């Protein structure tokens, strides 16, 4: 938390203006949290108490959670989302940083062309690619499969671009020393260069995992079989089924939200720093 205390904040003594500013900021933060607070609160209320808008439930109950989880669909969607986001994240960490390292540290013909080609794909919006991807997936039998959901994101230009900037700061002497020690190039990347860019790797991991965990558009297109839905797509279809049973919809929404919030509580510092890093450099 050392980054939170900055010399700038130290000037002046406590003035009324600052107390007012603090209070407004704090109340604004509470307003930002209201959707989340009401979602959790309502998920703990029975159907009869949904119209009672008190934030602390009168008779809190886990009945909604038991009901929503009982048919096993949410558990399945949770597993699908977790598996897909994890595999895609690992793939991106590996390939994005391997490509980035190669482009940053190797001299070879075609380096500039490869870099510009990868960079140029950042200009192409996903929406333009989904129709060709869908055709590819249906031709190759990838509709309704994990692979079908995952394949478009296995390597990302964003990750290559982000990691390249960090590998460029790794001193060549370190790599040369490892070369003299007889390590092959793969081992140099894996054992020497990668450990030096772990902050960037964790930033990339956070972004990739979050992006895939919350992804909606492509999974919605490529899945029709309920058992292969990801959590967001599953929740969306579940909510449509429930129509006006808001306490059940809020429970489903809470179930989709709890995992990322839990991760945040554990890794708050890394996540905030990672977002800053990726946002500023990326």
């Amino acid at each position, binding site marked *: 938390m050392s980054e939170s205390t900055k010399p700038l904040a130290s000037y002046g003594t406590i003035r009324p203006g600052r107390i007012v500013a603090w209070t407004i900021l704090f109340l604004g933060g509470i307003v930002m949290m209201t*959707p989340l607070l009401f979602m959790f609160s309502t998920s703990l209320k029975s159907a009869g108490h949904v119209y009672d808008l008190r934030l602390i439930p009168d008779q809190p109950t886990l009945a909604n959670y038991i009901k929503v989880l009982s048919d096993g669909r949410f558990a399945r969607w949770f597993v699908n989302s977790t598996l897909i986001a994890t595999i895609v994240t690992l793939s991106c960490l590996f390939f994005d940083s391997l490509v980035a390292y190669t482009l940053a540290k190797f001299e*070879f013909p075609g380096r500039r062309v490869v870099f510009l080609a990868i960079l140029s*794909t950042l200009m192409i919006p996903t929406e333009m*690619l989904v129709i*060709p991807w869908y055709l590819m997936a249906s031709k190759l039998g990838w509709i309704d499969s994990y692979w079908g959901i995952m394949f478009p994101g296995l390597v990302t230009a964003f990750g290559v671009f982000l990691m390249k900037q960090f590998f460029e700061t790794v001193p060549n002497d370190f790599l040369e020393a490892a070369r003299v020690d007889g390590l092959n*190039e793969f081992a140099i990347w894996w054992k020497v260069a990668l450990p030096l860019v772990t902050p960037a790797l964790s930033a990339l991991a956070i972004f990739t995992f979050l992006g895939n965990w919350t992804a909606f558009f492509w999974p919605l297109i490529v899945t029709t079989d309920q058992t292969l839905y990801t*959590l967001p797509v599953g929740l969306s279809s579940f909510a449509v089924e429930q129509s006006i049973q808001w306490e059940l919809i809020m429970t489903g929404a809470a179930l989709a939200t709890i995992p990322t*919030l839990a991760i945040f509580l554990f890794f708050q510092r890394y996540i905030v720093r990672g977002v800053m890093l990726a946002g500023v450099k990326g």
Partner: protein
Amino acid sequence: MTATRAPRSAGSGGVWGRLSISTKQIVWAWAFLVLPVLFFAVVRFYPTLEAFYLSVTDWDLLNEPRFVGLDNYRKLFADPLFWQVFRNTFAYLIFGTPIAIVLSFAIAYYLDRVTFLHGLIRALYFLPYLTTAAAMAWVWRWFYQPPPIGVINSILGSFGVPAQPFLRSVTQALPAIMVTAIWAHLGFQIIIFMAGLRAIPTSYYEAARIDGLGEGAILTRITIPLLKPTTVFLVVFSSIGFLRIFDQVYNMTSNDPGGPLNSTKPLVLMIYQTAFSSYQMGYAAAQTVVLFIILFSISMAQLWILRSR
């Protein structure tokens, strides 16, 4: 095994050993790149070209694609629904981006100087960014319900304000969805602005204070000009986000996607429906090309603005 392996490895070691260091580097580099480069060719470049090609064909997925020249584009520009969708999409952008930027800057500016419970307040603003848009769209949809269900109408009611139709109104639904989208991304923009504020050397502020500049003058003459790259990045990032808005609209209007009366329908939802409800693949591809051209122009504008600083 060992007998057959030994000479082979010795032989290949011999060839490998005779290569110069720079040649070895080239071999290693391409060994590392071959899979990812293939991936980019097959999953990015080829589909991009295919999207342009499909946009000049008529195709329903069942029969062979038929070349129709620019018919899809003519049809699109003559379609009143497209112009409605175009207006909607830019309405999200033109109102959403300035509100999001001003709000997130103001919050970041004050949050940066707060030391008391700094981490907690930052978390309150940042947490919504970590939620799933599809899930939170349903929470907001519930908030916007008529009384006595909807939270917002109940609060308004307690102040004597008449019930508002929100998502059921052709004029209020789009702003209601826009608020949800602003809320979802505000935390990210605040964090990025704070990173930008931290990057300004404190010596600038000290010098300004010694020169007798007040708070307001420091803000307008030092902070805002030095934050220009951050601001341009966030304006572009936020604009692209609004131009691609889909999750919130789809989930908040799922009984009549893009409704009421198409008043909230953005371009991406039109693309989704054209491709995956009506199966007019060529026509949908033409719409994606239009989206691409809009997004491309905005990215070019960003580069141009940043270069001319």
